């Protein structure tokens, strides 16, 4: 048999098998009960308002608090990693390795439950506090690496030109290098925002109250109280409404960045 023919026959076989499997599932599945379990319009309508005003709002609050903290602390860590002072570099590297190396869930539990016990009941203040701080502490580790890469991508001549005009290292960083670095890393920063939106779902382990629960916790609570999975699908749709525009935006920016000069 010729090579070309063999490849074609293999492909046909795969198509045929796929159609068989899909057809079998479609025939055997109970579409009525599936729809009832996942897409009950009544439950959907009933919870729609709460999903937007409570769950989605809380997801956004966790995301924005965590991201802001992550950016600020991540910038500090990035500058420490680039510092000529060895202990700073050492500290930042260790921090980044630790928080990128352990699961977010564990960090959440340590900050949410471990710290208050260790500190005799003192805990991160605010209803959103513990969750947001844990998200930020971990996001900072990832963002620090992104920001460092951005700073290193700015040509060395920029710092030299700024210094030769009499700017201090800090001022040259702040006014010349960092603004350019952030322009370069907008696409990866957007991607990390998307990851963080999804990671807020883990905050649910901290036993949030009904007013502070985010999308995933909201969906789980309502799914168990209604014995129906429609809330999961509703939450999934809201996540997608948040994340898909951002991933599209990031892809566009990346393409434009590649086309741009330099």
């Amino acid at each position: 048999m010729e090579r070309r023919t063999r490849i074609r026959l293999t492909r046909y076989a795969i198509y045929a098998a796929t159609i068989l499997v899909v057809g079998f599932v479609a025939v055997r599945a109970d579409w009525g009960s599936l729809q009832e379990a996942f897409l009950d319009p009544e439950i959907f309508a009933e919870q729609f308002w709460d999903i937007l005003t409570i769950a989605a709002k809380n997801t956004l609050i966790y995301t924005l608090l965590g991201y802001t903290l992550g950016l600020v602390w991540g910038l500090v860590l990035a500058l420490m990693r680039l510092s000529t002072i060895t202990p700073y570099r050492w500290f930042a590297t260790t921090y980044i390795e630790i928080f990128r190396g352990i699961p977010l869930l564990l960090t959440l539990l340590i900050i949410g439950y471990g710290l208050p016990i260790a500190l005799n009941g003192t805990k991160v203040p605010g209803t959103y506090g513990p969750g947001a701080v844990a998200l930020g502490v971990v996001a900072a580790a990832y963002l620090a690496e992104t920001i460092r890469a951005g700073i290193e991508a700015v040509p060395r001549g920029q710092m030299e030109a700024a210094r030769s005009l009499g700017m201090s290292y800090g001022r040259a960083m702040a006014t010349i290098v960092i603004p350019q670095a952030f322009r370069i890393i907008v696409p990866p920063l957007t991607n990390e925002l998307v990851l963080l939106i999804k990671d807020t779902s883990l905050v649910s382990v901290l036993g949030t109250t009904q007013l502070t629960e985010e999308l995933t916790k909201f969906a789980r609570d309502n799914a168990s109280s209604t014995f129906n999975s429609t809330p999961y699908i509703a939450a999934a749709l809201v996540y997608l409404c948040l994340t898909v525009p951002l991933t599209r935006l990031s892809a566009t920016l990346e393409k434009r960045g590649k086309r741009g000069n330099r």
Partner: protein
Amino acid sequence: MTGASGPPPSPAALPPAIDIRDLHKYFGDLQVLKGIDFEVALREVVCVIGPSGSGKSTLLRCVNRLEEPTSGQILIEGEDICAPHVDLDRIRTRIGMVFQQFNLFPHLNVLGNLTIAQRKVLGRSKPAAQAKAREVLAKVGLLDKIDEYPGRLSGGQQQRVAIARALAMDPDMMLFDEATSALDPELVGEVLAVMRSLAEEGMTMMVVTHEMGFARKVADRVVFMDGGVVVEEGAPAALLDEPTHERTRRFLRMVHER
């Protein structure tokens, strides 16, 4: 002598603008500068020439300590810039520097490029900084580009803006590191013209260049470097036409044959 700036006046009391004594510079094990003694008097224009890798850029970059000298002394207007508690940033405002790659700030427009250091380093008011920016832009003939971003300018225009950016700080002296080497041949002239008019106004200049025509017409003195040492120096006509050292002769022959 065709240099329009004439022989530099020799003010008895004033120290030279740049005074380098026994400068050594290593990069790791590589010795790049091997005991350089070098001076630029006030209002003097000195061109530094020499083959690639001879240490010209390194010497120039030591003058404002972008490069850290390994040993030796660097006096700027009599002030030792390697002294322990010296305010390097303040000294650097007196030394304008122009790079081969322009190094304009791409995220700022021309006005922003020209005002940012005036405002943040010299503490000038916004109107004062903008007035100064207009003045120096007019000098390099680019007042109409004041709102453009660097990316939209030709290489020659970018380099002229870079010169204006340095001039906006009212420096006492200017350093040029192969300011025209990155330019297309047809754009070299406009930048050299700006540099020449600066020299004619009496600016103190240290110019690393491969433009022998410029050195001949504008320089008060030409310094030939090779292998990390100053091989010889002298008036442009003397050095370029009747070099005393064989290395200088060989270099000039190569340059002319290009």
